[in-house]
């Protein structure tokens, strides 16, 4: 396998204006704080975490939608991290994104064909009208939209269909990297399954690499080859899917898995676990040492003083914790 995407110690920090009147002191919000990973061609990496853990910012940093503070991103061997906007643009064709809210991410005044054709107009302007139309039609068919819907407007579609339009728009350029930012969390269960299956089919067909961001570990399990769990801008655990779900070694991963209700009353009612207490701490003033220690059942003195570094506990299974284990 070849590595398509290489992310090295990526940091995205935001400067917030200080609150003091006389001595305004800027605060730094470390949304993404030193994330590294590789993504192979045709592979899906699931990125999981609570809201506010930096998973969307990570995706935006990789795509160059927010400027990165430190670290670097390589896509197919090209260094993207410090390109200026104009040079970056030519690489954008190769990496596309599907957003969470299917209706809000489509321009209400454009028809379906205009929406899907827009990336082609931008990146392949030499293409004739007829050729463009053919491409739009074939991708529409591929994502399960009917040819007679080509001149309709987004509001005429249901949520699941809008998400299909969003996927068509992202894939019409045949990118090698597709970033899906919570693509199914706004959809009903029965529709969610349709979209996940569609993404799996398309991945196989187009040999797509995917970053699949979600807060729902059961959805991620369905679609990912590897999974990365994030907490307050940092990676806490990365492993292959089966390994992560079988042996979650970081207490946070464990808690996330335990918290998912199982649709079976016999199992669900006999489940013994204590849900994680409290909320995500403010990313403006993360706890010292390990940022998870304030909610961690295993926390000890060392957790308050020393930030854990990622360790490979078994091959390809990385954990940032002083007390890893089942």
């Amino acid at each position, binding site marked *: 396998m070849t590595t398509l995407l290489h992310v090295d110690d990526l940091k995205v920090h935001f400067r917030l204006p200080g609150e003091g009147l006389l001595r305004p002191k800027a605060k730094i919000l470390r949304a993404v704080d030193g994330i590294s990973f590789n993504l192979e061609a045709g592979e899906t990496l699931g990125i999981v975490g*609570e*809201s506010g853990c930096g998973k969307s910012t990570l995706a935006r940093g990789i795509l160059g939608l927010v400027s990165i503070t430190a670290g670097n991103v390589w896509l197919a061997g090209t260094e993207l991290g410090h390109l200026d906007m104009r040079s970056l643009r030519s690489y954008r064709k190769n990496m596309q994104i599907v957003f969470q809210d299917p209706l809000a991410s489509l321009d209400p005044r454009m028809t379906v064909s205009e929406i899907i054709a827009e990336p082609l107009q931008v990146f392949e302007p030499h293409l004739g009208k007829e050729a463009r139309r053919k491409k739009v039609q074939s991708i529409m068919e591929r994502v399960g939209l009917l040819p007679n819907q080509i001149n309709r407007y987004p509001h005429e579609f*249901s*949520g*699941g*269909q809008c998400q299909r339009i969003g996927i068509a728009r992202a894939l019409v350029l045949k990118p090698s990297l597709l970033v899906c930012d919570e693509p199914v969390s706004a959809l*009903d*269960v*029965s*529709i*969610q*399954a*349709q979209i*996940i*299956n569609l993404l*799996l089919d398309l991945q196989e067909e187009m040999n797509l690499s995917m970053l699949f961001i979600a*807060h*729902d*570990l*059961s*959805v991620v*399990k*369905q679609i990912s080859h590897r999974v990365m769990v994030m907490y307050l801008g940092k990676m806490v655990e990365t492993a292959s*899917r089966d390994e992560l*779900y079988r042996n979650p070694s970081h207490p946070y991963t464990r*808690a*996330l*898995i*335990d*918290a*998912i*209700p*199982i*649709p*079976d*009353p*016999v*199992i*669900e*009612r006999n489940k013994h676990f204590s*849900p*994680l*207490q409290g*909320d*995500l701490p403010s990313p403006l003033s993360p706890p010292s040492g390990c940022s998870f220690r304030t909610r961690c059942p295993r926390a000890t003195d060392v957790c308050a003083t020393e930030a854990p570094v990622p360790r490979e506990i078994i091959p390809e299974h990385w954990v940032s914790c002083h007390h890893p284990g089942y």
Partner: protein
Amino acid sequence: MPLLEVNNLRTVFHTNDGEVYAVNDLSFSLEKGETLGVVGESGSGKSQLVLSIINLLASNGRMEGSIRFQGKELVGMKTRDINRIRGDRIGMIFQDPMTCLNPYLTIERQMTEVLMLHQGLNRADARRRSIDMLDAVHIPDAGNRIGRYPHEFSGGMRQRVMIAMALLCHPDLLIADEPSTALDVTVQAQIIQLMNELQQEFGMSIIMITHDLGVIAGISDNVMVMYGGRICEQAPVYELFENPRHPYTQGLLQSVPRLDTAGDAKLHSIPGNPPNLLQLPPGCAFVDRCQKGIPVCDQQQPPLLQISPEHRVACHLENLP
């Protein structure tokens, strides 16, 4: 006598595009202390059902039929009378805790108002009771926090405040419309655990609306599955998960991604899209997406059949020999 009895409820909205039939001929009852889970996709009429019960329909909506709560008929009741019931005997929790709290008022103002209005308490007593209730929903440092504004709380904390507010008058019925959907899974688990705990403490009945079958499995005694504004299946929770009869219920249970199974197999999905409530078909609303349809499904609305004392299904297949 059941706590709540709904009979042939029909809720219709007048819109520029025509009549929208959100709830169609729906009947059920709820006993004291019972938790009824209501499942359905967006547009299945589950939210409009509970808004009908507490008479909070949009101005273009009207309802027919009967809703009896503690023996009193709620349909057609004067606003002044229903105001004495909702907030007092019926508490409600909405999906989005941010839009349901007034951002200009402190939590204290919003909570004490309920008690002063419904129970005639003075401000000091109301404040004391409010703080007790915030303690009951495990808000740390409640005595101090009560003076804060909604934006100073996190999403999970706000939902706790909403729950505390709904329970202030010790209602007999608590209606929760997707109370945990907007929250992270870890916080959702906290909220569900809290609701189970509070039900044991206060003994109220709960109507829990959600599209998450895992939440339903953990909290309900009975489950009602809605589709196109009608009940398509209703059964006790163990029976429903073990022996789902309606093709929609079966499809729904199979399409949930689960943690306790290997993730390799493709998910089962229900083809097609939810029905348009403006143009419901003359027959079964699920017919276009059903893989077991027979000719009669296109023409006739399936009646809600009682297949066992506690299990009801609306499907023509039940009538086949």
